[in-house]
């Protein structure tokens, strides 16, 4: 029996004849309708077969619930009408921004279209910032290839971009006593996989991470695990790209494409029609939509939600590196996201994430249930975690394909298109390597020459709090704004906030400032500095206070003068 026939037999039994599979142009398409999203995802996971098919396209319709449409920017104009960039990068996440920067190493006009009001607004700004050593990756995966290369590029890339980064190492902890000999031998396997690893017995673990659970019997240490601020890095990529001449178009959404003879002729945005020679799809959870518009629909995204919790710096003593426990891996789903405890570059503890399949691609809600599950689970690794030290939590949505691997390739049916799709964990780690490869592919395609003027260096916003006293004093003598502390929890000065508003990637929102200089990231969550930051933004942009927004359309903070605003 053929694969399809066998699969259809199975689907028929499982879903009562409501679902069937068919081959179209080398892709496996699933059709039919189901009322439970989890069933739709499961059907996809059962059916996927990357060896036989180009990709799995899950077209099973969800009945009984409306999948929310893409949220589009409210504004529209004609400012981009007729633009003819060499490359249009769709998506201003870490993938899109790092690609744009790499593209500028070649002589090309680069335009980035991002539908949100800032970069890194989706998955890139909503993850744990871990630079993965590649513990759970397998040979043959693109994830593995790009993670291995990317991991080793981090030091250089972050130094060039002025982004804090540290290889802190990760402990994978075990409670089993009888498996100890097996675990002790396991580093050999990882070393063979090009992942440096070291066995650590209970006594040494106690010395190196004294506050982990006494239940832990031993651990494997991965020295190549690192931490970075993922949105900080994305902003840095974007700024460096812009400084090298890339054009970043925020609030710019792709609405349609004109495709003829297997080529994208033009791309319609809310700011006019653009005529790129080459399109790069880095649209995250929307990369399937872009593929569809480009007549190159050979994969599907099943979004997977994950929540992370940030703990007060007071809790930072509990874990100095990254710690996760074996046995907290989600056995049901089989994929990696067991989560862990990360000591962040900013000195907080970050705990999470969980993994929940969802059809809502932009629902960043948090739930009490997620917080409970995450803390219950991670307390097994770090028993001192105390919910009273939680300062905030956030949700991100991973863009997983059914193949559970990255897609880094030219279009299968459309020639002037490159996909950087299906990028989920370890997307942050892989980004520099993916960007470098895709830029080479683009340069080859367009026959572009090297750009001798490219400057890889980005000068970051000064951070007085981490400067030696003399240097900090000298900075304040030059500009007194660096001596006026606005955010007391994170010790952020007025000077830094003004800098955030004057950078190459424009920022004019309270969250934009927060993501660039950490004002409002601390334990009072902007209770004190919120109104001050709002005033600084209003002053700098010369707009009334009621026009200052938290992050996007209609997120104004106040309504207008007392009594008049009604």
């Amino acid at each position, binding site marked *: 029996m053929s694969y399809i026939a066998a699969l259809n037999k199975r689907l028929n039994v499982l879903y009562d004849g409501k679902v069937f599979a068919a081959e179209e142009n080398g892709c496996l398409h699933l059709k039919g309708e189901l009322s439970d999203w989890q069933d739709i995802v499961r059907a996809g996971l059962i059916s996927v077969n990357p060896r036989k098919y180009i990709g799995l396209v899950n077209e099973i319709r969800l009945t009984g619930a409306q999948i929310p449409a893409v949220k589009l920017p409210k504004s529209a104009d004609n400012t981009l009408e007729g633009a003819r960039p060499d490359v249009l990068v769709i998506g201003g996440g870490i993938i899109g921004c790092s690609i744009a920067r790499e593209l500028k190493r070649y002589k090309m006009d680069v335009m980035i279209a991002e539908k949100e009001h800032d970069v890194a607004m989706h998955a890139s700004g909503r993850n744990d910032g871990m630079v993965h050593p590649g513990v759970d990756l397998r040979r043959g995966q693109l994830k593995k290839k790009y993670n291995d290369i990317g991991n080793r590029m981090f030091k250089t890339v972050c130094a060039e971009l002025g982004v804090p980064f540290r290889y802190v190492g990760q402990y994978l902890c075990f409670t089993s006593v009888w498996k100890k000999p097996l675990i002790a031998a396991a580093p050999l396997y990882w070393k063979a996989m090009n992942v440096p690893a070291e066995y650590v017995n209970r006594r040494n673990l106690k010395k190196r991470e004294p506050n982990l659970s006494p239940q832990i019997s031993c651990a494997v240490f991965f020295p190549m695990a690192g931490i970075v601020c993922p949105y900080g890095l994305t902003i840095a990529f974007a700024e460096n790209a812009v400084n090298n001449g890339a054009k970043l178009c925020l609030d710019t959404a792709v609405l349609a494409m004109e495709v003829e003879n297997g080529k994208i002729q033009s791309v319609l945005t809310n700011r006019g029609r653009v005529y790129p020679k080459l399109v790069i799809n880095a649209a995250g959870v929307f990369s399937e939509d872009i593929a569809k518009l480009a007549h190159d629909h050979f994969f599907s995204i099943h979004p997977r939600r994950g929540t992370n919790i940030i703990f007060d710096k007071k809790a930072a003593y509990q874990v100095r590196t990254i710690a996760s426990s074996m046995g907290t891996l989600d056995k049901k789903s089989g994929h990696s996201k067991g989560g862990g405890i990360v000591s962040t570059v900013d000195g907080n503890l970050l705990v999470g994430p969980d993994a929940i399949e969802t059809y809502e691609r932009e629902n960043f809600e948090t739930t009490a249930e997620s917080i409970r599950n995450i803390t219950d689970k991670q307390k097994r690794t770090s028993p001192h975690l105390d919910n009273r030290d939680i300062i905030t939590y956030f949700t991100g949505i991973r863009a997983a394909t059914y193949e559970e691997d990255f897609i880094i390739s030219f279009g299968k049916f459309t020639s002037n298109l490159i996909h950087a799709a299906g990028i989920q964990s370890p997307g942050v780690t892989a980004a520099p390597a993916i960007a470098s490869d895709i830029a080479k592919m683009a340069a080859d395609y367009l026959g572009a020459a090297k750009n001798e003027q490219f400057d890889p260096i980005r000068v970051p916003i000064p951070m007085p709090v981490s400067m030696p006293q003399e240097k900090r004093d000298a900075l304040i003598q030059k500009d007194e704004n660096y001596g006026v502390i606005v955010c007391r929890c994170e010790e952020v000065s007025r000077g830094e906030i003004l800098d955030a508003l004057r950078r190459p990637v424009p920022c004019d929102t309270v969250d934009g400032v927060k993501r660039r200089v950490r004002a409002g990231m601390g334990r009072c969550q902007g209770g004190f500095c919120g109104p001050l930051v709002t005033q600084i933004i209003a002053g700098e942009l010369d707009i009334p206070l009621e026009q200052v927004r*938290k992050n996007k359309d209609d997120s*104004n903070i106040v309504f207008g*003068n007392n009594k008049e605003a009604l």
Partner: protein
Amino acid sequence: MTVLRYNVTVIGGGPAGLAAALSAAKEGAEVLLIEREARLGGILKQCIHDGFGLVRFGEKLSGPEYAHRFIEQLPNPNITLSMLTFVTKIEKQSDGFVITMVSKDGIRDIFTKSLVLASGCRERTSRQIGIHGRHCAGIFTAGTAQYYTNILGKMPTKRCVILGSGDIGLIMARRLTLEGAEVVGVYEAKPTASGLMRNVYQCLEDFNIPLYTSKTVTRVFGEGRLCAVEVSDVDACMTPIPGTEKIIECDALILSVGLIPENELAESIGLPMDYRTKGPVTDQNSMTMVNGVFCCGNALHVNDLVDYVSESGEAAGRAAAGYLQKKRSFAELKADDSFLYIVPQMISLTERKEPVTVYFRSKTERGKTRLTVTVDGSEIYKKSYSQLRPPEMERIEIDFKGMQIRPDSRICFALAEVD
């Protein structure tokens, strides 16, 4: 550059710090008063309602008027004022402290013999009480909403729900109503209001603003700006009861769910803290367990009347000015489980000062109650109350004069029902 030297350095120019600086100066000390904001007065600057000063001045003053009573005593030849100045580090030395501070003038160190922490408190946030849903604009702590309304003259809401019946929440319910906003209701997870009864009457009842007890906000909705909240009934453990959810359309959620003393500086120099007050452990002279470091006002424990904050500041300032570098021995004041907390937690046997002022709150709402204090089993003080409520702080004075108190003496505070 020579390092400037002071007898007393007061961190914080709100009501506690002002009182501390003035009283230390009165004792003849060279005082440095450090304030991180551009103006003195702390949170009083935005408290334009009246009711301040009844105990101290016998008058009902507004917050700025109350603060002015202290600010007008400046300049004072013994007080150096350092505004818009932020303390970044405190380092203990054998004979005092080196304080590193940042201002427009740069970063500099000063030396001080003693130190008064008067850094006030901050508000609990939506995340600390586990508000879930979309993280949209329009979620404010009551103090932040008050800043927008009273300092900036801008409306943070047109129609809001207030969660928590702390005093600032009650006051903001009235304030926003006066500005024309609609306050749909004040929701309180506890079975009774958390604020002073006078505020419940004057701020809610007089304005027909409903107070809903044993209910809480369980979720917020909204893309950009908040557009609705979900409220639920809660059980006796304050856990939401499924099936009781109700959606209320509004554009803001204002939180008055508790205040936390700001003691990150205190923690950085290793002061032992009291988990009940969330402030440092102190003796009857407001000195913490580190010699030379004093603490007062809302940084010590959250007060409900500013009059007591000033009193506490004055005592700390006076003690800091007279501070002698002596090794202390202590006896512990033990409060049983019927108390939310008592302050001070220790009495120093080295520098006895009588009578000892003790502030306390009962843990639960109580009817007729008798407070007794015993030393090694024998009663030395008693007082009867017709009622005790956690939101209302009580103040008593106890004279230990002539009593043999040793470090191992058992000084016990207890509350008991009276028939």
